[in-house]
């Protein structure tokens, strides 16, 4: 059962391996992005010791971890892949397979993303970790909870993209929706640019009712030790609730979509 989905994961992983040059360049550019933010924060912190509970080392750790996690947002192109499949009619071949469409998409995404995690995110993080003397999570337990939170955040990001992709069955063209949700909402509320503690009260309140902070801010705050005890457990529970809700909405969405499916030019 799981084995057939794992095949998709492995295949997607191997497919990504094909274009090495592209991956190296991507890594290089990501590093440039991160350098910008690291030096921005260093400049902002000159003459200060602590702001909103973050000292310089704390904030740099936050920025590097959150920017590393942001890579998933950049590289996960599930919405566009589904859109393409709908537009070309290729989605029909997926529907004929005796497998679950959502799970298959997740398995494929996991393959691409585990490649990204291994060959882009990890080296990038280690480079900055060494160069700027960042902190590790306070304990091994925190580290494992962090990884758990990253995975949950990833599934939330996936589910949001999946829902956007499903809209292609009605809209055909979803670039607009994608830009609005991912480049607009997710960027503003995920906390990739600065910790939510730095947000004005109003924005922080809006962020609290949306799922986006669970993608980057939660895992990062767990890593830096900002969330501990009860706070940490609540964060994980909120993530779980969002996973349940968004996966559910995605399933309802694609069932409805398949019922009304009309293939263009088929």
């Amino acid at each position, binding site marked *: 059962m799981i084995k057939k989905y794992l095949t998709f994961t492995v295949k997607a992983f191997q497919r990504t391996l094909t*274009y090495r*040059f*592209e991956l190296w*360049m*991507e890594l290089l*550019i*990501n590093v*440039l*992005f991160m*350098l*910008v933010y690291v*030096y*921005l924060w*260093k*400049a*902002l912190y*000159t003459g*200060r010791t602590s*702001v*909103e509970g973050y000292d310089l080392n704390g904030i740099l750790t936050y920025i590097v971890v959150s920017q590393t996690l942001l890579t998933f947002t*950049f590289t996960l192109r599930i919405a566009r892949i589904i859109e393409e499949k709908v537009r070309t009619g290729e989605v029909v071949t997926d529907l004929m397979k005796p497998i679950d469409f959502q799970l298959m998409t997740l398995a494929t995404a996991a393959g691409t993303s585990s490649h990204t995690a291994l060959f882009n995110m990890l080296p990038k993080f280690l480079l900055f970790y060494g160069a700027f003397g960042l902190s590790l999570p306070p304990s091994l337990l925190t580290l494992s909870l962090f990884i758990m939170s990253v995975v949950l955040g990833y599934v939330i990001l996936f589910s949001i993209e999946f829902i956007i992709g499903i809209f292609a069955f009605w*809209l*055909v*063209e*979803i*670039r*607009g*929706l*994608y*830009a*609005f*949700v991912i*480049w*607009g*909402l997710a*960027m*503003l509320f995920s906390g990739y*640019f*600065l910790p939510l503690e*730095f*947000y*004005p009260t109003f*924005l922080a309140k809006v962020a609290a009712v949306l799922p986006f902070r669970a993608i980057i801010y939660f895992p990062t705050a767990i890593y830096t030790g900002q969330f501990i005890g009860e706070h940490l457990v609540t964060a994980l529970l909120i993530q779980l609730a969002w996973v349940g809700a968004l996966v559910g909405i995605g399933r309802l969405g694609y069932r409805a979509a398949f019922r009304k499916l009309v293939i263009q030019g088929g």
Partner: protein
Amino acid sequence: MMRRYIKLYFLLAGAYVRSRLQYRLSFGLMCFGIVVSEACLLGLLGALLAKFRTVNGWTWAEVVFLYGLGNVAHSFMRILGSQLDDFDRYIIRGELDGVLIRPVPPLFYLLASRVELIHVSRALTSVAIFVVAFHLTDLRWTLSVALFTFTTILSGGVIMFTLMLISATVALWTTKSGKLTDLLVAATKEAAIFPISIYPLAVRLLLTFILPVAFVTYYPAQQLLQKGEFLGMPESFQFGAPVVALVMVCASYLLWCSGLRRYHSTGS
């Protein structure tokens, strides 16, 4: 000859724009999305600087001024160079062959056949931000300031465009450039919206001589805002943007031509 090309440009671009307008809802949402995301980044920048007041002696208004300069140049380039976003698609699918046999220069055909109007919303937002920042910094419009600003933005747009072209051209050798073009230009733009004095020497040199985006924002801003921070570089760099733009145009076009010469189809 020139008139024929101008006519052709509008014909090709018009066809693309019409096709994109078929999906009105999506088009509207995308414009909206772009405006929201621009506003968001600015809002976050504002939240940040409200807390910290200055970055290396640059006030909020001055940073927004740099942000505006960089974004205006970037968005105008995005309108005209939309095609370069995912140029590698042409190579992977072998579609470049079809472009090469057309009776116009390939680069002209590529650029004309795709002009993304959605970036107009980005450009308008950027212009609005820039105008506001301009007034916040106590600058006043005089003829010389207006001319200098206009030249700076034009040169800035050209520099951004050539960077985009160079990174797209890479695909002629490597087959795939993926999101490379997009990312490279986005990253350099991001670097250029902050005063480059925050970076170590190596990064400053990179942004001055290799990916010369410092000429889009930082150096011209020295002239406009009278900051006098040259970080050991010649003071004439404040007027350097048009020269750099010209050099970049020649370099990128030569690279493009040599890339096309060695191009052989993927044969799929």
